[in-house]
């Protein structure tokens, strides 16, 4: 009887403890479940933050590498760069451009929809950067495009220029006006 009573006392003492233990376990399980459920989102956020940090470092390093390359591979005195812009933005859908310097092919580009739309919105593309000796040279551009009146056109244009000391920048401007939408390329040299 005493033992039973003792057992009852123990039972009385342990019941709240058990209940509390049960509550604690339940809370721990709930916490674990909550954490497990929110873990993928949290992990993805951390990953995104780390990727953002990496992208910032990549951009910073790209600047350094670009400066190094420009300085070494294209010294100012021999540097020539060719740029492309569109003047009439609706007249032509540019497909490809090929560039020749003194009859040597130096660059070619096949345009994507995004690039075409960027050019139409005033974007400028650097088609080529390289080195040339001082003196006279010939730049030839061959372009293929679809004009606004549904014609496929292929045109070749040439431009003679003199490479002088210092950076040379040549801007090619493409125009195609109504009604015939005939492509016209003009060249402008910058120092």
């Amino acid at each position: 009887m005493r033992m039973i009573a003792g057992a009852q006392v123990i039972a009385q003492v342990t019941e709240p403890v058990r209940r509390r233990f049960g509550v604690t376990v339940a809370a721990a399980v709930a916490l674990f479940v909550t954490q497990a459920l929110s873990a993928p989102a949290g992990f993805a956020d951390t990953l995104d933050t780390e990727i953002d940090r990496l992208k910032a470092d990549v951009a910073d390093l790209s600047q350094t590498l670009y400066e190094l390359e420009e300085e070494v591979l294209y010294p100012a005195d021999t540097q020539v760069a060719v740029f492309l812009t569109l003047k009439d933005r609706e007249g032509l859908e540019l497909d490809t451009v090929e560039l020749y310097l003194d009859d040597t092919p130096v660059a070619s580009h096949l345009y994507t929809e995004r690039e075409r739309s960027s050019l139409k919105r005033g974007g400028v593309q650097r088609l080529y950067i390289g080195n040339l000796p001082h003196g006279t040279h010939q730049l030839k551009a061959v372009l293929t495009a679809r004009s606004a009146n549904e014609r496929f056109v292929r045109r070749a244009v040439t431009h003679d220029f003199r490479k002088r000391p210092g950076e040379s920048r040549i801007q090619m401007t493409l125009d195609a006006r109504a009604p015939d939408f005939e492509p016209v390329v003009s060249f402008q040299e910058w120092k």
Partner: protein
Amino acid sequence: MMALRLRLVACIGSMVLALAGMPVHANAEGDAGSQLLGGLAKFALDSGDPAAALRYTRNLPTEAGQLARARAMMATGSGNVARELLEQLLTGQYYRGQAALLLAELADSRGEPENVRKYLETAAKLANGDARQQALYRLAEIHREAGETDRAGQVLASMEPGYWSALGYMNIAADYGKRDLNPSRALVALRVALAMSEKDSDSRRSDELKSRLLIRAGHLAHKHEDHDKAISFLEKVPLESYSTPQGLYLHGLALSASGNHRAAMQSWHRAKKYPLAYPGVANAWLGTGRGYDLSGYLGQAGEAYLAANASFESERVTLRKLADQIRSKGAYQALVRDARDSNAEWFLADSRTLTQPRTAYLLRFMEQPDAQNAVKRVAELEQIDQQFAQREDSLEVFRRAIRERLESAKTSAAAGNHFNEEIEALSGRINTLNERATSVARQEALRGAALTLADLKMSLGKLERRLAARGQYLNELLTRTSEALERVRGIRSRALRLRNDAEKTLDEIALAYVEEQDHRMAFALDRTEQQIAHLYEYLALQNIERGEP
């Protein structure tokens, strides 16, 4: 001979210049220069090279340059710097609206709803064109998500017709469709959305949105048993759109409900040509059997159900194989790269890609925002790794070349004197020839040659100084190259670690998606089996009635 010599001197001159090249930085001088750099930054940003855009806009004082720089900063994960630039633009002259819209985007990514609203309101007031429409659309969405459909409608009513207003009306129609017992408000909103999308200047985007709107309208009309209206909407869904299979299935459903089983089955037959990944295709397989059943062709109904059964079984095998490939090769390779490397020729791509099962699963998978983010992460990290692998190789070669050049740095300065003598001799010959040249063309040619020689002489004048500083310059270059190489390797190892994590996340999402698709197929399979059982039961009962064994 003369021309040959001139060319030789010119070549030697340029080589010497290239060897001893000293740093010269491009900077933005004047308006034309700024315009050129601004245009270059714009093109770089649009063609996915934000690092180049940062380079072009480094010293660009114009507001357009600042805006391009802020966009490039956002793309390269430097949100804080971008925010500062945009705050400045907000008090500027030309790009206040666009800056406010970008600030709203930044605030959204940081979970600041109050700021999002504030900046969107500013953008709606100050921006023009597409930026203003986008800001208004997002404001309407904020109202709609808060349950204020009327206020959302008021905002949409103030918008110009086009893509953004069409999207807004489509979302409002979805809300009306869920809430109202009568579909008329939702259908009116969808009709308005259709009219708005007509004005979208991007024809491909407009066509795609129109298909979705027609599907929604058709589905809504069919759900409310207005089958003729449903048919009229669904007939307009173009056959080459992403929504075509679903449209064909719903078209068949509406035809079948109006009693035209034969025409319904024609639509379902066409839907069956598409991969089972697309919504509606599995149901079109089931519908064909049901159509035969309702038309009284029980034998053909049985065959159709058996064919559907076989098709679903085979799809489950495909899905199991896809899951195995995801586990062994990773989801990026199995889903994205392998789908990209399919043998579809580019000129057939538009019509064939929709019928490739793997591409179909990829497209469906990529409809989920989580999947889009997961694939984007892996793709970006892969691009960084590829880009820097090339740079690492170049820098290695470059470092070797500098070391070799340092070894042989003891070139004689007498070379310069030799060239000077040669240039003097050639100038003398040009002078002599000038006296004899009578035609204008010859005189012009000689003047050009004299100009080139003068340029060369000037460059040669700088050569002595450059040669003296050459050793120090090359050593400095070597240090910079080695430092850059270390940084490139560091970036590559970080990119690799992050890519492993990103791929793991993508694999988990992709496997869950494939499992979900497998459940969908299992459910469809279960339904065909039930239909076959019903059919056999019916036939057996008929046989009993006829007294046949």
